[in-house]
């Protein structure tokens, strides 16, 4: 018999509607799954089973009364960057270790309005800075995947490390993530699940702890493309409390999933196939191209000439914004305070103890690039590059409808991998994803193949601004061809 936790959201909703099981039963199964695997994986910062069961009970009443929201009775968990009213929200930083917001983020409120059930808050790299799930104040998150014949712990990717891990290990039906440079797409690829970074402005940022405001976007991680579409449907929408949120109607994403991509023009950017790119990544990319071709898509070679400057620009713009965004964590109003002999001493002690190494590094880089005398050479130049990258895509979209690239340059690596001690190597994980954030475009990551070592490999579909529907549909078509078995090693018994 299929476990309730193996069902997709679409299947679960069907079962709930047809009274095959209740939301309470579904929720209890997910809670058991969390109890079973949490010690091994460390995907959660906070679990909220009592809240989940109360919400599930309410969902069951609603279902009985025929009042079903889009996600009625569906157990989810949220990256611990989403402020949740009266529930600790930490950004996985010591500096917010005991912070309890008195407000609910717009996106989580949207999900609750659609009947979602909350299982807890998920781990991330501290303040969403990282690509490995190893910079959280609350310890490493472990991938539920293992390489063939190896017992070594692998990273789930990051920064939405807990989100991808929990979805992959069926501890939640789906999760929210955030993506500033690849933080939804890279862990989704590493964990063999599906995630989308929507167009900048599609989801409200209100109530989400900020990393880099002009790049941050909320998005879902789920078991498949249909669930991803449904989650995005519930999360998205204009919010007058976020001045950068777009006042554009949200289309019906699940309805867009026809699987028909006949005549769809798909661009393959040559700059994403640099010399020395991992052979297995190249192979899975070629496989994806073939599959989409078989479905009637037209494959077109394109060029995105400024790609090579993207990573450098990203690692100037994001830290610059972060250095200001994180200035509010100063020990004065909330969060950690370490007393000092005067105000400056208190600041220094609080921030030194409150922030981890990677956060401190980025705050310092950001402060440096904005400093008098350096601004033009770094920040201003990076913004110019950003405009060029955006223009690259605009040119490309005159010829193609979507762009297909790998999601990551490698499969998941081991925790403690020495080569990743060099921050530059860690940052290279974002090489295929940061352009999308810089250009503000939507990007979908989904599993398309396996490495020779038995680890998931993902591809990325990049769309026009506010055209998530097209990449979701292309992803849906690809998913049908791939038939990826996303059950991780840990769950295969």
């Amino acid at each position, binding site marked *: 018999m299929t476990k309730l936790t193996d069902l997709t959201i679409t299947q679960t909703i069907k079962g709930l509607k047809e009274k095959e099981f209740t939301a309470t039963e579904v929720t209890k199964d997910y809670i058991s799954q969390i109890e079973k695997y949490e010690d091994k994986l460390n995907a959660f910062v906070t679990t909220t089973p009592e809240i989940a069961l109360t919400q599930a009970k309410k969902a069951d009443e609603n279902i009985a009364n025929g009042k079903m929201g889009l996600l009625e009775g569906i157990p989810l968990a949220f990256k611990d*960057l*989403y*402020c949740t009213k009266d529930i600790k*929200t930490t*950004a996985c930083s010591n500096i*917010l270790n005991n*912070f309890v*917001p*008195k*407000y609910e*983020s717009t996106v989580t409120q949207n999900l609750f309005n659609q009947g979602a059930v909350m299982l807890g808050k998920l781990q991330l790299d501290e303040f969403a800075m990282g690509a490995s799930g190893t910079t959280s104040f609350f310890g490493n998150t472990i991938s539920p995947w293992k390489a063939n014949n190896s017992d070594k712990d692998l990273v789930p990717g990051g920064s939405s490390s807990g989100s991808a891990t929990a979805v992959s290990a069926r501890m939640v039906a789906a999760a929210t993530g955030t993506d500033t440079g690849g933080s939804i797409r890279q862990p989704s690829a590493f964990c063999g699940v599906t995630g989308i970074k929507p167009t900048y402005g599609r989801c409200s*940022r*209100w*109530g*989400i*702890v*900020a990393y*880099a*405001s*002009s790049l941050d976007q909320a998005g879902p991680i789920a078991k498949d493309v249909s669930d991803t579409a449904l989650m995005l449907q519930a999360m998205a929408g204009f919010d*007058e*409390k*976020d*001045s*950068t949120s777009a006042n554009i109607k949200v289309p019906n994403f699940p309805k867009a999933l026809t699987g028909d991509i006949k005549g769809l023009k798909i661009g393959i950017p040559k700059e994403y196939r640099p010399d020395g790119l991992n052979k297995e990544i190249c192979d899975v990319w070629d496989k994806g191209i073939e599959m989409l071709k078989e479905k009637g898509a037209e494959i077109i070679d394109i060029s995105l000439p400024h790609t090579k400057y993207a990573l450098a620009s990203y690692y100037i713009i994001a830290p*610059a*914004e972060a*250095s*200001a965004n*994180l*200035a*509010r964590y*100063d020990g*004065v*109003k*909330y969060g950690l305070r370490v007393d000092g002999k005067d*105000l*400056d001493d208190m*600041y220094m002690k609080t921030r030194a103890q409150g922030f981890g190494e990677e956060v401190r590094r980025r705050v310092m880089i950001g*402060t440096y690039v*904005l*400093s*008098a005398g350096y*601004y033009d050479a770094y*920040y201003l130049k990076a913004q110019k590059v950003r405009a060029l990258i955006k223009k690259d895509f605009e040119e490309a979209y005159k010829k193609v409808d979507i762009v297909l690239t790998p999601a990551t340059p490698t499969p998941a690596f081991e925790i403690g991998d020495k080569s990743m001690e060099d921050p530059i190597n860690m940052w290279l994980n974002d090489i295929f994803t940061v352009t999308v954030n810089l250009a503000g475009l939507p990007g979908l990551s989904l599993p398309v193949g396996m490495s020779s070592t038995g680890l998931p490999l993902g591809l990325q579909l990049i769309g026009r601004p506010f055209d998530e529907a097209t990449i979701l549909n292309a992803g849906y078509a690809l998913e049908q061809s791939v038939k990826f078995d996303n059950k991780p090693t840990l769950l295969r018994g």
Partner: protein
Amino acid sequence: MKEYILKGKTGDWEIVVGLEVHCQILSKSKLFSGSSTAFGSDANSNVSFVDAAMPGMLPVINKYCVEQAIKTGMGLNAKVNKVSEFARKNYFYADLPQGYQISQFDKPIIGEGYVEIDFNDGTSKTIGVERLHLEQDAGKSLHNEDPNKSYIDLNRSGVALMEIVSKPDMRSPEEAGLYLRKLRSIVRYLGTCDGNMDEGSMRCDVNVSVRPKGSDELRTRCEMKNVNSVRFAMQAIEYEAKRHIEVYENGGDIHQETRAFDATTGTTKSLRSKENAHDYRYFPEPDLLPLILSDEQIDKAKGEMVELPDEKKARFIKDMGLSSYDASVLTVEKETADYFEEAAKGNDAKKTANWVTSELFAVLKNSNKTISESPVSAKSLGGLVALISNNTISGKIAKDVFEIMIETGKDALSIVEEKGLKQVTDTGAIEAIIDKVIESSPENVTLYKSGKDKLMGWFVGQVMKESRGKANPGMVNKLLKEKLG
């Protein structure tokens, strides 16, 4: 306009002054949040999650504050920039919750403009305005509540300010004082700032440098922060200019620095030098889109513009025949100008202006009241002036009536009727009094007739006295001359 020169040991010096004035925008809610801006509320009672910089909170621009800035820009004869941009000004301080102030940097909402200042001698001068930008205020640190701790009040955090930066066009403390007063007058007319310097809703940073007279160089300036009255600003300028001269004349050099003005001693002292100046690391605020003004918004502001002091003054001179001085005095405050116009309705404008600027102002000054608290309404004062003009009462009696009006609040006519103060203009009645006076002083009549003309005054006085001031003085004069031959 008088040239202002400071005499030094080595020669004459001229001073160069520029002002940065922070005006709190009159608005019920803050620049980026819906919190109240009420003055004098309990500490930390007007603080939203945004004002306290809670994680994940985002600013949303208050459109009303933008409209207020546009109107002020128009009042400064300045260019309204249809596209402007907010920027983060980064620095750490305990009463700055975000760790940055949202301000405007290289793209302010208002560009260059000017303000006319008027001197007492009737001359005027144009002071250039460099820009006006929008920014949020910080909170307030309270250092005197506890010997070991400081407290923070965030009520002011996020309140909307307009920073109005002048060009370095002022050459004397007087000019700076006139500029500040004129600025205050303009924003009050527009209703965009209450101009209250003692409540801190208008604050001033003063930049001062000096140069040898005749030179056009701009030497190193010093900035005095948060000077909170016009008088203090003028004192600070004078003190600082003299300090610069002394330093230069002793072979020293002035270093760019921020100084504080101490009102109790009238002196300034160094706060921080340029080396320790903040590097604010300005960059465009990514939480806000560029501020793009629509034609509608600009037209709306245009439609809401009121007659400003300069225009009003010109009209008072041209259409109402007032002197430049009276027109200036009457137009500083909109309330005064409105009062005057109401009182002058149907009356002689000059006579009304005299009554307002002399009698009424004296009463207000003595009772420490503003014109809106005047015990005599504009209409009542107009009534009094009318009684003088139509010869119902004499100017002298009018002063007595005015005093009763202040005490009782009654209108002039009813007082005149009640007390029987109506001027006697009946020839027969006046002649009777004159006859009585002539009869009772034959010696003086003889003296007058023998050529002592000066006695005429004495006769008039006697007649007026006999009539208890009510006889029409003109008629008394005329009839007396006839009777005495």
